[in-house]
């Protein structure tokens, strides 16, 4: 990754020197464009062809920024990359803010980021008396409740939290589904008979969108509105993904490792522990990552349909009452949950497979 910009640097620097006028006329052109952009004529044109303008603006921006890169000392190239990676989304947010406060974008559908941030803060610190929920369960009340009601009070705080509701459903469902998924996948990978018997069935369930069986699960569980069917649907989604990728991982093991194991006298258990399991782990983990993403999709969808708390409920409820900033705030929370869960899984992955760390690390 570090070589690519370096390779591109030289020809682009040469181009800068040969056509020294390029950045020279670009800067006034951008300024002119901004003046035009603020005019009334442009305002009307914008609403018809904003995609074209946005595209032209982006190309101009890339051209200008490209001219900057060769002038940055190599020492600061890493920092420069980070500034670009963070700066561009910040620019987009600023544009969004400006467009929706100035009325170019309809603020009812696309509230400015500042309003979303405020909504996120309000959601965090306030208690919704109507729904009897809060976003993160008001952790600042923990000492007080612990003193007055004991651990039951703390549990009640956790129960009112949207984040806790979603997180616990995903975590329980994921573990309950992934664990048997790994076991069944291993058995299917190792035993040809089991594989031939189960493969068609597994593939059939694999292509079925798991949300489709949610009504069946509501029938099966004693309390259709409880946690049971929600956790079960996450578990089932994770199970098939993990089982199928684990099977593929075991089947894909290079034969030479199995032969080396045999030649050095490994018995069945040693073969599993020292050869098959570690050799299949990379594919098992890519299955787990996939399953985690799917688990999040499924839980949000389920919470849309049938839940009185959870981030999916939060999105859907705020659509029903038309409080769009809170809808967006809930989306930010879902993104944060996704990042959090993926980071945890990556941390486990690095601990379990130390040999996959980069040679420098």
């Amino acid at each position, binding site marked *: 990754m570090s070589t690519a910009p370096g390779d591109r640097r030289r020809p682009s620097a040469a181009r800068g020197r040969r056509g020294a006028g390029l950045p020279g006329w670009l800067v006034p052109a951008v300024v002119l464009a901004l003046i035009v952009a603020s005019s009334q004529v442009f305002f009307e044109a914008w609403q018809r062809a904003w995609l074209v303008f946005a595209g032209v603006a982006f190309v101009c921006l890339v051209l200008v920024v490209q001219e900057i890169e060769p002038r940055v000392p190599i020492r600061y190239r890493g920092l420069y990359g980070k500034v670009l990676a963070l700066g561009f989304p910040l620019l987009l947010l600023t544009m969004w803010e400006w467009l929706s406060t100035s009325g170019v974008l309809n603020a009812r559908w696309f509230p400015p980021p500042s309003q979303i941030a405020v909504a996120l803060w309000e959601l965090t610190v306030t208690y919704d008396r109507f729904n009897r929920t809060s976003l993160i369960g008001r952790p600042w009340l923990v000492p007080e409740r612990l003193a007055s009601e004991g651990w039951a009070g703390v549990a009640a705080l956790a129960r009112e939290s949207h984040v806790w509701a979603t997180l616990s459903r995903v975590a329980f469902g994921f573990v309950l589904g992934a664990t048997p998924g790994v076991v069944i996948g291993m058995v299917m990978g190792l035993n040809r008979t089991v594989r031939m018997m189960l493969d068609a069935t597994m593939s059939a369930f694999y292509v079925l969108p798991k949300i489709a069986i949610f009504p069946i699960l509501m029938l099966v569980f004693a309390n259709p509105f409880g946690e049971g069917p929600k956790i079960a649907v996450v578990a089932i989604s994770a199970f098939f993904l993990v089982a199928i990728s684990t099977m593929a991982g075991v089947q894909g093991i*290079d034969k*030479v490792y199995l032969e080396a194991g045999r030649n050095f006298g490994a018995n069945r258990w040693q073969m599993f522990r*020292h*050869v098959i399991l*570690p050799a299949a782990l990379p594919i098992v983990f890519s299955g787990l990552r996939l399953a985690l993403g799917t688990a999040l999709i499924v839980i949000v969808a389920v919470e849309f349909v049938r839940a009185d708390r959870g981030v999916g409920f939060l999105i859907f409820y705020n659509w029903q009452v038309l409080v769009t900033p809170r809808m967006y705030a809930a989306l930010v929370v879902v993104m944060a949950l996704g990042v959090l869960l993926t980071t945890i899984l990556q941390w486990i992955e690095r601990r379990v497979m130390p040999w996959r760390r980069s040679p420098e690390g």
Partner: protein
Amino acid sequence: MALKIVATAAQKRFPTRNGWMTAIERFDLEVEEGEFVCVVGPSGCGKSTFLRILAGLDHVTGGDVHIVPGPDPTQPLNNVVFQEYAVFPWKTVLDNVAFGLEMRGIPRAERYRRARRWITKVGLTRFEDYFPSQLSGGMKQRVSIARALTNDPQVLLMDEPLGALDAQTRTVLQEELLTIWEETRKTVVYITHSIEEAVFLADRVVIMTAHPGTVKSEFRVDLPRPRDLSTMATPAFAALTGAVWEALRDEVTRAMAEQA
């Protein structure tokens, strides 16, 4: 000297869609204790199949191939140095080299002690905590050789161990291999397609024919030991490689014609 490996009228056939494919037929070979035998032949002549049968990873469909067991029943019969990539990527150099001992239930301190002895001999002391992905091809193959030798097998089987390496690394490892072998004097069966490598290393070079794979002829290599790179410059070496190539040429052209 006592016989260590005996193959009599060995035959190996594989079922294929168009009937049976014969890999090895009427294959006779005797290897003495402490002898270094190289098997050379055109690609697809069944030399690797023979090695796999010797290693117990495959079975004959006729005749008999066996290693004569030594007096110590706990000493493993054979270990294989596979072609590249057969070291476990998930184990460190130390754990790779100690693998055979670990499978035999030898306590950690003891197996690490024995493994470190061979790690030092193949010059990887600084790298014992490295994972194979951090090593070059030549270093990986040193790990593989050390793994086999640490297990102290009665017979060492090598399946084109240097085939995937570049020419310079290959030459260096050939010399190292000779030094190690002259120290241990293990019985070795070494598969290669390089005539120079075979003559340089072996006491005896066995030439195989293709389709069906059988022993065509044998050459005793009487070049004095210890050998080093200067051995390759002697007229005796040149004469031997010339003779081996003469015997092999027909087979190679025939194999190429069959593949075309």
